[in-house]
């Protein structure tokens, strides 16, 4: 299964630069690159206290549900979803087979400009993610210092008061 085993600093820098430029061009509030499994890969923008981890998981779920509906109606090209609100809107675009781009923007920003610039930035993102995948497809994580037998290393239950 294709995946993103490892992203190095150069990957994240390139992705962040692409997102920052996109936000400037499209006048968006923020943009998130999300794995379709629900992981937040990186994000840019002024999104204050928003819970981006949860937004990433829910945006991924919403997009994937929409993709499934596409399959049910024999449509291959549901490659984006749009949620319009009174103040804010959310546009989610498929970057490649594994990743999505979620864009948050205000009602003053037109969907057209977001769509226009997002298709360009999606290509740049896809290119960088492809480079990351082929660089080290079996990349792992050195956990040699972790003592898995030590329960203190794992999740602990609060003591009863």
């Amino acid at each position, binding site marked *: *299964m294709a995946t993103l085993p490892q992203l190095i*600093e150069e990957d994240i820098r390139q992705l962040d630069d692409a997102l920052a430029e996109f936000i400037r061009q499209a006048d968006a509030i923020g943009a998130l690159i999300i*794995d379709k*499994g629900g992981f937040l890969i990186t994000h840019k923008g002024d999104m204050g206290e928003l819970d981006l981890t*949860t937004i990433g998981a829910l945006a991924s779920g919403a997009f994937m*549900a929409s993709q499934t509906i596409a399959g049910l109606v024999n449509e291959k090209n549901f490659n984006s979803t749009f949620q319009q609100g009174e103040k804010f809107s959310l546009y989610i675009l498929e970057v490649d087979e594994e990743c999505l781009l979620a864009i948050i923007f205000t009602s003053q920003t037109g969907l057209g400009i977001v769509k226009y610039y997002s298709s360009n930035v999606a290509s740049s993102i896809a290119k960088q993610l492809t480079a990351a995948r082929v660089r080290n497809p079996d990349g792992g994580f050195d956990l040699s*210092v972790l003592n898995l037998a030590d329960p203190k290393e794992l*999740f602990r239950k609060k003591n009863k008061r």
Partner: protein
Amino acid sequence: MAIINQATKELQVKIVYYGPAMGGKTTNLVQVHDHVQTNAGNKGKLVSLATSSDRTLFFDFLPIEAMTIKGFKTKFQLYTVPGQVIYNTTRQLVLRGVDGIVFVADSQFEKMPENVESFQNLMDNLAAQKLNLAEIPYVLQYNKRDLPNVAPVEYMDFLLNNREVQVPSFAGTAHKCEGVFESLNMITRMLLQKFINQSVPQYA
């Protein structure tokens, strides 16, 4: 599959709680959320996409941060699937990118057919994503052990843990938080162990 981010020094992994309807999957997440000991800011909100009668419609989601290893933060994303048979498409979506599974079985005798059906459904849905249980760490939790009509653990092992390699199983009473952390910590150990086995030299 897990994501390793060298820039932010994060490892993100996804654990899915699977099993028959009303078996206690959501209760497991609620108990973890309520009882886990974490540093401030390391536990996210428990999000439930549920029906008006509190049945899971899409999934429950709990992001939680655990240990730091060599400066890397390990972030766990815990999901449940809807157990009801009709929501199979949703289960397939939630399984995408899964790293580890906790199968929560209902110990009541009359629920054994549903347990077996759900376990088979898990294997089918993994196969649809070109995955199989031999490759993904999983543990079994035999929940609701406080009820009077439960099947013996040995019988449940015979039904659900009768594969070539037996996996750890835990007796649980999730609403009392019994077996909940035991299951979570075991699946955590198993999937981190998998990373150790796969470890390769790092990029600078």
